[in-house]
């Protein structure tokens, strides 16, 4: 049966042709084709990956922007709060200081007044003593033999009087 009996000539030519085809295509055609496909796939994959990364970075950036904004706001609030506090402390401190100063001035004044008062009193006492002697001289009509001794007597008697 010719249909199913292989012929030597055809086998020879087929082996030659197919072997040659395999060699030529395998050497010059399939490597660039496979490399081209592989490279393109790689490039597409990389592009997709990079797009994904960029998107993620964008998101991160937006997120960090928001974070930054929020932080700035917080910081501003904190600064304002601090400033207010500082102002209050300063005012409070000033008030305390002013109070102290006032108190000190008042005290000084009081002390001074007391001192002046004492001086005035002493002066007054001396005046009274002199007046008293003069009055007594006039009353007696004569000068006392020893005015110094009299003055002492009067001074002693006045010293017994407290004016306060």
């Amino acid at each position, binding site marked *: *049966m*010719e*249909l*199913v*009996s*292989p*012929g*030597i*000539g*055809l*086998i*020879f*030519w*087929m*082996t030659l*042709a*197919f072997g*040659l*085809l*395999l060699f*030529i*295509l*395998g050497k*010059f*055609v*399939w*490597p*660039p*084709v*496979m*490399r*081209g*496909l592989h*490279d*393109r796939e790689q*490039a597409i994959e990389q592009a997709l990956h990079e797009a994904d990364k960029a998107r993620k970075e964008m998101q991160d950036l937006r997120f960090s922007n928001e974070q930054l904004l929020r932080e700035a706001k917080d910081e501003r609030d904190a600064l304002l709060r601090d400033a207010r506090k500082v102002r209050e402390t300063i005012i409070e401190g000033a008030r305390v200081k002013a109070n102290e100063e006032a108190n000190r001035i008042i005290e000084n004044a009081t002390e001074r007044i007391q001192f002046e008062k004492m001086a005035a009193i002493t002066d007054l006492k001396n005046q009274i003593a002199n007046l008293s002697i003069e009055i007594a001289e006039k009353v007696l009509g004569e000068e006392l033999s020893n005015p110094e001794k009299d003055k002492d007597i009067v001074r002693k008697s006045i010293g017994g009087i407290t004016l306060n």
Partner: protein
Amino acid sequence: MRTFLLSITFLLGSFWAVSSNHAIEETGQPKHETTSHSEEFNAGNMIIDHIVDSHDWHIASFGHTHFTIPLPIILIDEGQLMVFSSAKFHHAEESYKGYKIETDRKAGKGKIVKVIPGTMETDKTASRPIDLSITKTVIGIFITFIVLLIVFFQVAAAYKRNAGHAPKGLQSLLEPLILFVRDDIAEPSIGKHYKKFMPFLLTLFFFIFFSNLIGLFPFFPGGANVTGNISVTLVLAVFTFAITTFIGNRSYWLHIFNPPGVPWWLKFPLPLLPLIELAGVFIKPFVLMVRLFANITAGHIIVLGFVSLIFIFANMNPALGYGVSPVSILFSVFISLLELLVAFIQAYVFTMLSALYFGMATEEHEHSTEKSH
């Protein structure tokens, strides 16, 4: 998807294998009743003459005028090389240099044999010359060869030119097929080492696919029944067999000669299973060879059969012939369209199975887990 394609293929394949057997048997019988030079149309002879190889390329006949392209005859006989044109045989009616084309179907019609000097009788005692002629099928192979080279050199150039860009023109037409071979045939069947088999699988796929398509084209330079010739499919199967055998690793051969996970009495004293496995090594490429040959030949036989119907009916009555022709042509067209599908499926199946065999031969087995089931 793949199992679906495979089942369709096997279904169609078995159907056509059966029909082709019928056709061949039917052709055998009426032949004895009619003489070889009878005017009566013999569908069987016509079909067989169309699908087998021949030493000239018959284009058309008008009455007794045959338009054929004579092809070179190359013979090696007793160490002597002879090259001459097949036109010297005058359509197998004359002998030349003591050779003739056998016309008797029983003695192997179409083969080149020696004649008894001075007569046209076949010299049955003489040895047959080694026939390396460029026959119709060889020309068909060369046509496929040239078409493949032209097409794929352009595609390869396009890949270099369009590096990193979208495919264009011929490149975008063939890229889905290349990707199909890579992603749906090679990678799932072979695994991670698939890359080194890609040149063979791609060449195999496109050779079969293009040969099938060119074979479907009914006029010169198409129509040579390349993949429907057993010698061609034999060579393709031998390539697959040789590669499988050559690359087979230790575990592949171990699985053949000492299959793990089977009872010992299947291997000793009678090595039943190793014998079956060893037979399988040869049966696999044999089946590859027969499947492609039978499918393509059967397709051609059916198309020619439907065309023959016109002439069979016309022999009874010319009017009947005209009446039948629309139906016949319609069926021929339908079968031809089906053959377009088969052209692809057979290329797919041959490549797929080759890839599977390579996968089996290079698979790394885990023996510890293999024994457990």
